C-alpha cells in the first residue's frame, strides 16, 4: 500500500511537471535559452582552432592558450586586444554587433583568425 501510493504520487508529480513545462517554456530549467552556448577558440601549435568561428550576435567568445608559448589576441580593426596569454590563460570578448572580425597574434602575426558574427536566427 505505502509503496503504491509513493509511486502514484511520484507519477502525479511528474505529470504535473510535464504539464507545467508545456505551458510555461521560459520558466523551466530544461529550457535551452537559459544555458548560453559556449564559443571557444583553442590556441595550439601557433594556430587558432577553429580559424573561422561563426557566432550569433551577443555571443561571448573565449580564447584558451593551450600552447607552450605566450600569445595574444589583437583585432585587426582595433576592436579588442588581450593581455599576453601564457599557457592555460584565457581571454573573452562579447560581440554585440554583426560583422566579420579579423584578428591575429601580436607576437606571432602569421597566426590569424576570424570571428563571423551573425544575426540571431
Amino acid at each position: 500500500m505505502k509503496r503504491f501510493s509513493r509511486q502514484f504520487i511520484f507519477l502525479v508529480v511528474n505529470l504535473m511537471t510535464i504539464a507545467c513545462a508545456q505551458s510555461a517554456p521560459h520558466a523551466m530549467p530544461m529550457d535551452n535559452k537559459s544555458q548560453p552556448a559556449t564559443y571557444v577558440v583553442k590556441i595550439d601549435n601557433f594556430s587558432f582552432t577553429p580559424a573561422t568561428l561563426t557566432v550569433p550576435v551577443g555571443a561571448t567568445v573565449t580564447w584558451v592558450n593551450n600552447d607552450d608559448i605566450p600569445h595574444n589576441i589583437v583585432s585587426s580593426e582595433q576592436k579588442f586586444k588581450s593581455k599576453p596569454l601564457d599557457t592555460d590563460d584565457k581571454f573573452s570578448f562579447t560581440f554585440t554587433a554583426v560583422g566579420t572580425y579579423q584578428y591575429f597574434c601580436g607576437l606571432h602575426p602569421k597566426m590569424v583568425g576570424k570571428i563571423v558574427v551573425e544575426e540571431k536566427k
Partner: protein
Amino acid sequence: MGDHIKHDHSKDGIDRRGFLTCMAWAGAGTLLVVSGGTVKSFALSELGDKPMHEMKGELSFVQISDSHIGFNKPANTDVVGTLRAAIDKINALPTPPSFVLHTGDLTHLSKETEFDTLEQNLKDIKTERILYVPGEHDVLDDNGKTFRDRFSKDSKGDGWFSFDHSGTHFVGLVNVMNLKAGGLGSLGHDQLEWLEDDVKHLKSSTPIVLFAHIPLWSVYPEWGWGTEDSAQALSYLKRFGSVTVLNGHIHQVMQKVEGKVTFHTAMSTAFPQPAPGTAPSAGPMKVPDDKLRGLLGITDVNSIHGKHSLAVIDSTLAG
C-alpha cells in the same frame, strides 16, 4: 666539447648533421668557426698557421640572445641557470669583449620582475657596457616603454640607435613593433628613413654591423622568420665593403652570405627551437636533459688583422 648542429639551407654541400664544422667564406672574408674554435676549411690558407688569438684585431664583442627570463616549461625549467652558464662562458673568453649585444627576448612576458632578474645577472659580465634591442616578448604590455626606459634610454623611436667602436659602425634596429596580421617582422617607415640618413655620410670602407631581433633575411616565412621591409634597409648599405647582420629570434645558428653581407643568427641561452619545417610549428623544443646545453650558446665576434670582415664564432654552453 659541445657539438654544434648546423642547419644547412644554402645547399653548399656541407653535411647538415651535427659535428664540428667550420666555414670560411673566402669571398666575404668572414670566418665562421663553430664550437670550440677548431678551424679547418678549404680557404684557411689565407689565414696561415697563426693561432686565433694572434689574428684578432682591436674589435671584440659578444652577442647573446633570447634569454626568455620567466620561461619555465619542460624545454628548460632553469633559464637563469643557463644564462649564468652563458655569462661564465663570456667571462672565460681569452679576449674580454668591449661590449655585449643582446638581440632581444630578454624576458618571456615583459614583467618587471623578469627585467629585474635579467639586469641583475648581466651585471656579472666583465665588459664595459651592454646594448639591447627588444624581442616581441619584451614589448607586450606597453608598446615597449618599460623596455626602452630600462635598457635603451638613448634610443630613438621604438628603440633604434647607432654607435661607433674601433672604426666599425653599429646599428641597433627594432623589428618587433606594429606587426600586421599575417605579416613578418617590420622596421617601418620612420626607422628606415632614420637608417638611410644615419649611414649616408659614412665612408664605404667602414665596416657595418646591424643587429635586430627577428632575422633581416628570409629564413622561413611560414613561421614568421623574416622581416618584410629588410630589403629596403639593406639597399642603403649596398655600397659598403663589409656588412654583418646579427639576429636572434629563431634560437639556432643559421648563416648566409650574399655578396658583401653576412647574415648570422645566434643560439638562445634559454631553449632551442626546431629547424625550419621539421616540426608542426616553431616554439620551445624539448630535448634530453644532457643535450640541452649543447643547443644553447653565445656568439663571439672579432675583427681579424688584415681582413675587412669579422670573425663570428659560436660556442655552446656544453663543455
